[in-house]
């Protein structure tokens, strides 16, 4: 296994929290196992570019220590460890890939036989969701000793990401896992990748046009789960504040729709305000401060936020106004901090929005082996309240 991260890596300074990832650039000399199906010259050029990019973006990073050397011997250990999800050994599927999802990803070939190059182009690694995705993708790749996985940060910019996909094409990979910054803007780049014979898998977010498969949970479903919880809690009706994410973004639209669908089922529930807080805790705090002025005690019964960061901002405003007892706060995502606040009884609920890693790595492995995959692999959205919070800790991001 070799893994490489471009555009976002942490110099190996050894500080802080175990969440840092060393900056790994391995690639000066590609060994023979490089099974290149496309023109070698283009591939070499691509590698040169990629290495240069990797170097420049990891200035100060420790790029000489090759973890492949250490990772190879550990792979058999992991394979011999009890693995429930995947009989071939290696890491397991996530807890949010059960039932049909787990069946769809069951690998028939042996893990060692998966010999191919996978590029993961993520829309942005600058959020804990992206960071967790990168971590678990790298961890999952260790289950496949002959799979080469590189992770690219699209920096939430469609142009940057398109360029990266072009680079991936000229480098000549076998599988591209992509979470597009924009469904339409990435379509041409994805189409070119497909034309070059690269198997394209979309993860978390979809792209226009045909792909081999899409893996991810459904934002409408996540919104519904949050809305249903509120609908159930407010059976007699009530006033709800909805804190929206970035306007126009597809998760915002889908989560909003899901919440609306669920709240419609109870007649006397009314959404009294739906400000945009851009998935930012600071903006949600300010918006909620104003809303608590607009609506006096007893005039707001619940807050549902499109993500946990905003839910935590709203919770802070509510606590400062001394109105925690009368307002339920529900988020979406299942961040560590949200889970802790639920456990402490301060936040009512959240809906886990599962990270698609490690599962998308298994999808890539199946694609490498030429095994069949369904069109859509849907992961579970799980409602977390005080009752089941202990079960999900450590499985989110």
């Amino acid at each position, binding site marked *: 296994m070799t893994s490489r991260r471009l555009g*976002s*890596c*942490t*110099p190996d300074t050894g*500080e*802080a*929290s175990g*969440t*840092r*990832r060393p900056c790994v650039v391995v690639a000066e000399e590609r060994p023979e196992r490089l099974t290149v199906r496309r023109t070698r010259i283009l591939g070499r050029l691509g590698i040169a570019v990629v290495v240069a990019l990797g170097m420049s973006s990891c200035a100060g990073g420790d790029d000489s220590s090759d973890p492949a050397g250490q990772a190879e011997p550990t792979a058999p250990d992991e394979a011999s460890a009890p693995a429930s999800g995947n009989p071939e050994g290696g890491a397991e599927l996530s807890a949010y890939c059960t039932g049909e999802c787990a069946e769809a990803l069951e690998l028939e070939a042996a893990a060692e036989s998966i010999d191919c190059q996978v590029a993961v182009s993520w829309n942005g*690694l*600058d*959020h*804990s969701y*992206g*960071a967790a995705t990168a971590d678990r993708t790298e961890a999952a790749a260790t289950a496949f000793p002959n799979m080469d996985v590189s992770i690219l940060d699209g*920096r939430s910019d469609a142009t940057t990401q398109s360029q990266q996909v072009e680079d991936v094409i000229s480098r000549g990979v076998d599988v591209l896992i992509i979470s597009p910054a924009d469904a339409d803007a990435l379509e041409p780049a994805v189409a070119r990748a497909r034309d070059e014979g690269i198997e394209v898998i979309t993860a978390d977010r979809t792209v226009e046009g045909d792909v081999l498969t899409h893996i991810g949970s459904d934002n409408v479903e996540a919104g519904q789960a949050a809305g249903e919880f509120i609908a159930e809690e407010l059976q007699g009706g009530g006033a709800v504040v909805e804190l*929206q994410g970035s*306007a126009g973004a597809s998760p915002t639209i889908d989560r909003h729709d899901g919440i609306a669908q669920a709240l419609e089922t109870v007649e006397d529930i009314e959404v*009294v*305000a*739906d*400000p*945009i807080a851009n998935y*930012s*805790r*600071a903006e949600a*705090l*300010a*918006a909620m*401060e*104003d*809303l608590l*002025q*607009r609506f*006096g005690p007893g005039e707001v019964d619940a807050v549902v936020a499109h993500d946990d*960061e905003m839910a935590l*901002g709203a919770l*802070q405003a509510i606590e*400062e*106004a001394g109105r925690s007892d009368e307002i339920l706060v529900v988020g979406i995502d299942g961040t560590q*901090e949200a889970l802790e606040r639920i456990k402490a009884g301060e936040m009512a609920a959240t809906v886990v929005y599962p990270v698609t890693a490690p599962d998308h790595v298994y999808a890539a492995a199946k694609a490498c082996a030429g095994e069949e995959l369904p069109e859509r692999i849907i992961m579970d959205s799980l409602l977390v309240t005080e009752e089941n919070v202990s079960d999900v800790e450590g499985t989110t991001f």
Partner: protein
Amino acid sequence: MQTHQEQVLPRPLSGRGETPWAGFGNWQQLALLAVLVALLIIGSMLSPNFLEARNLLNVTRQMAFVGIVAVAATVVILTAGIDLSIGAVVGLAAVAIGQAVQAGMDPVAAFAFGIVVGGAVGALNGLAVTLGRLPPFIATLGALVMIRGYALMLSDGRTIRLEDRAAEAAWLGSGEVLGMGVPVFVFVGIALATAAVLNGTKYGRYVRVIGDSREAARAAGLPIRRVEWSVYVYSGLLAGLTAAIFVSRLGVAEPTAGTGLELDAIAVVVIGGTSLFGGRGGVAGTILGVAALAVLQNILNLTGVSPFAQQVVQGAVVVIAVLVERLVNRSRE
């Protein structure tokens, strides 16, 4: 440009009759003050909660975040420069503070560390502009991207939690004195001090002259580079301070803190009547601009205007403010 060069230049160079309040009281600022008063009256009529103590606490505190950065932006823009990296510096300084606290540093020391980090970045920006002779727009645009990237790299893109140190650190962002938030006092203090320096010292006059006419400044033998460098350092220091307040207020350090803050700050500076071409304007206008925009936003929130319409209104305010400035100046000439 030539026309007001002649008007303005003799005054600042004369050095007579300058008071710390010399920036106050021009036509445009009076108009802005009238708008602010009108907004306050409209607000109190539209919403019974508007004048409530809690609401005023909220509005002034929300004001302080943009305000501190806007004061720095005013000084930079007065030299005909611009600092687009402020928001990103807030993010980097926030990460620095978060990691320092995590590593066991006392929160107050960590805040100071964050301010130093901000100042250091500002010093580099200043060098790029003065020694490197890069146009400020380009230098700080590059810095914006690099610094945000560095903040994300350091933090791994994750929010850093202060955990049990959060309560200890909360006084700066969440503390209250006499019913007002601590950040408000910080903002007012910085605004007054900056206005005093700009209007009452030789340095302040240099800032305006350099922005108004570089040739005149050169002819007068002013230390152009040193003054220019110093305004970017100041900008960085205040971005670091804003980061400290952000971290303290939220109890977490977000690497994305301050995203877009530079644009809010520049908008407020422009509304306050400071010319983007340098030389004209001052902190007084910026304070009024910050207040007007914050009150407007608060009224829109209190009356439940849809979030999309709010953006339209806020954008329109910026354009109208500049339009008014143009018309006023044209009629004067």
